[in-house]
């Protein structure tokens, strides 16, 4: 009874705290400019199923893809077990579904145990890749400090979670074989789970029953505490991708990558020069800001992108400029966007719901013009991202701000612009000479 009350209280607190933080993230994302993405529903669902659920883009790099699949499958399938744990926790039962589900129950728990072992292998491999093998994209400078710690915390939490599962099942297995488990006795001498029916007796076989009851409870409570701990860690972590990968891929850009967005506020001004019949739509007296200075100038999809990024660095490791040692890193663009958005969100919380100017902006305080001007707009980062994040359109937005609002393009580009304006070519050639090649040898 007492444990049920504690469980329910824990459940309510854990869920509520997550809900509060999830709402904050939603609010932060909606600080972005509104755009409508309601077209092509079936194609969007297909993209989400292939890219998020099916992890299609991960498999361009098979080794991390398989290791990641272990963790991902274990994560998804283990959620089924939670149904029983929550039911048991509230009602005070122990393995409530075993008697009714019979062989299917044994199969499910066995399957979860096998996936847990694979996930354990994956987690250890991931920790080694980060900390021992030091895979280049996992040790780049933008990961110094919190991002590196965040990655290790997640992996260590996963290892602890898996250990709790085997403590719980292993100790209970030994107890059951002694007829001492709180689970309903079905007349057999073992649960028959794939891993713990061997691992349990091996580790706990010699321990007294009273001690095993304690270990089993530590495993059970430890498991559920870790699950809720994890859930509440997500909003502060790059690990949020496990949830946001789904909406983020659903709202993917479905146009060809070469098509950059058209700025209608520019079209509205330019078009009357060529089409006298055109009636401008926008209010000529309204102050229009061009490009992206701060996170609120981005669209909500950009901000969803930022929260969906798990900092894997595939983008930066395929970026021609990053590969050749330049300051530009598409991953850093996404991390900076999220960091600034979180800062803006905290500012709003602190000031009773309204943002009070802090004199900072995404452009300048987080992302420098050196980074932005290095971009080749080659779309390699966009192509690589396993959850269809688009760092390139943020970079172009920042460039638009620098050119159209601050007139601070690099000198050579200003030269190119004036050549274009005066000669219709990026170089200083006379437009009258454009067809000279026809008669040259």
């Amino acid at each position: 009874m007492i444990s049920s009350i504690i469980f329910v209280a824990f459940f309510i607190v854990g869920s509520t705290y997550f809900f509060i933080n999830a709402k904050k993230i939603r609010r932060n994302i909606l600080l972005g400019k509104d755009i409508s993405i309601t077209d092509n529903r079936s194609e969007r669902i297909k993209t989400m199923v292939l890219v998020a659920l099916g992890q299609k883009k991960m498999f361009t790099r098979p080794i991390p893809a398989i290791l990641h699949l272990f963790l991902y499958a274990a994560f998804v399938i283990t959620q089924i077990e939670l149904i029983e744990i929550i039911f048991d926790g509230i009602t005070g039962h122990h393995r409530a579904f075993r008697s009714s589900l019979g062989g299917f129950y044994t199969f499910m728990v066995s399957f979860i145990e096998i996936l847990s072992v694979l996930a354990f292998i994956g987690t250890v491999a991931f920790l080694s890749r980060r900390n021992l093998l030091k895979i280049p994209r996992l040790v780049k400078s933008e990961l110094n400090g919190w991002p590196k710690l965040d990655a290790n915390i997640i992996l260590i939490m996963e290892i602890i979670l898996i250990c709790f599962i085997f403590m719980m099942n292993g100790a209970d297995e030994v107890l059951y074989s002694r007829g001492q488990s709180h689970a309903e006795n079905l007349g057999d001498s073992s649960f028959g789970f794939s891993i713990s029916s061997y691992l349990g007796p091996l580790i706990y076989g010699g321990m007294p029953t009273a001690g095993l009851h304690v270990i089993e409870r530590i495993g059970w409570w430890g498991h559920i505490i870790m699950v809720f701990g994890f859930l509440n860690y997500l909003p502060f972590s790059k690990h949020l991708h496990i949830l946001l990968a789904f909406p983020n891929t659903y709202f993917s850009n479905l146009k060809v990558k070469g098509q950059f967005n058209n700025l209608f506020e520019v079209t509205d001004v330019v078009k009357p020069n060529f089409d006298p019949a055109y009636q401008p739509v926008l209010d000529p007296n309204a102050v229009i800001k061009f490009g992206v200075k701060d996170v609120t100038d981005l669209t909500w999809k950009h901000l969803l992108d930022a929260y969906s990024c798990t900092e894997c660095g595939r983008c930066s490791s395929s970026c021609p400029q990053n590969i050749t040692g330049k300051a530009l890193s598409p991953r850093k663009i996404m991390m900076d966007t999220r960091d600034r958005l979180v800062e803006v969100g905290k500012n709003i919380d602190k000031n009773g719901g309204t943002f009070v100017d802090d004199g900072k902006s995404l452009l300048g305080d987080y992302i420098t013009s050196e980074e932005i001007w290095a971009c080749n707009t080659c779309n390699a980062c966009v192509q690589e991202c396993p959850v269809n994040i688009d760092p390139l359109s943020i970079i172009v937005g920042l460039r638009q701000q620098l050119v159209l609002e601050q007139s601070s393009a690099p000198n050579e580009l200003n030269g190119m612009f004036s050549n274009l304006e005066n000669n219709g070519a990026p170089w200083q050639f006379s437009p009258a000479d454009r067809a000279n090649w026809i008669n040259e040898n």
Partner: protein
Amino acid sequence: METLKVPTMQEKIANGETPDILFWVGCSGSFDDRAKKITKAIVRILNHVGANFAVLGVEESCTGDPAKRSGNEFLFQMQAMQNITILNGYDVKKIVTGCPHCFNTIKNEYPELGGKYEVIHHTELVQQLINEGKLKVQGGEFKGKKIVFHDPCYLGRANGVYEAPRDVISKLDAELVEMKRSKATGLCCGAGGAQMFKEAEKGTKEVHVERAEEALAQNPDVIAVGCPFCNTMMTDGVKHFNKEDKTKVLDVAELIATANDL
């Protein structure tokens, strides 16, 4: 001296003719000495098959691509609408470009501004001509040679055209080899995003050197390209490694025109 037949749109219309296709030459193809050779190779192919085409000549102007990529949307749209006015004035339906940047911009970014055309890249045109039997291709001097194709970002990743240039090269009876980073994972030559017009930022290496190194690792006789900017960058990269005697950087159109004495 060879005589190329390059009618302008104005001439065609004055003669009461309607060209089937407009050849969009592009700034590089019009002004850059190296790229002009690619332009002429494309014209030779068009002349050889008797294509009914025209160019805009002095009426052509930059598509605005470098302005768009560097964030100068005003300049881009000014350029775009100026070109669209001219193209629509001639009632142009189909365009072939000699440059993937022009190709991408006209194909994908002009429609929203009122310019809707069927746009193909010159490697796609050559592929079509071969498939339709209008162009018979032999390997000529490239027969048995090792050719590596470098994907232009704005043809490949940006528009998903990976096979047309490879298909055309394969008709030369040459050995087509691939770099590790190719097709969707191809590495940029370093020119895109208006980098062509400025110095690189501080780093450890130039992008074109990185890419040329990767191409040269295949020990090719030819690095084939489909973009005048890639051509410049890869040529510089090959020179950086002093390999210009062994490895030539040639456009796919040049390969076809040269191999077949067009």
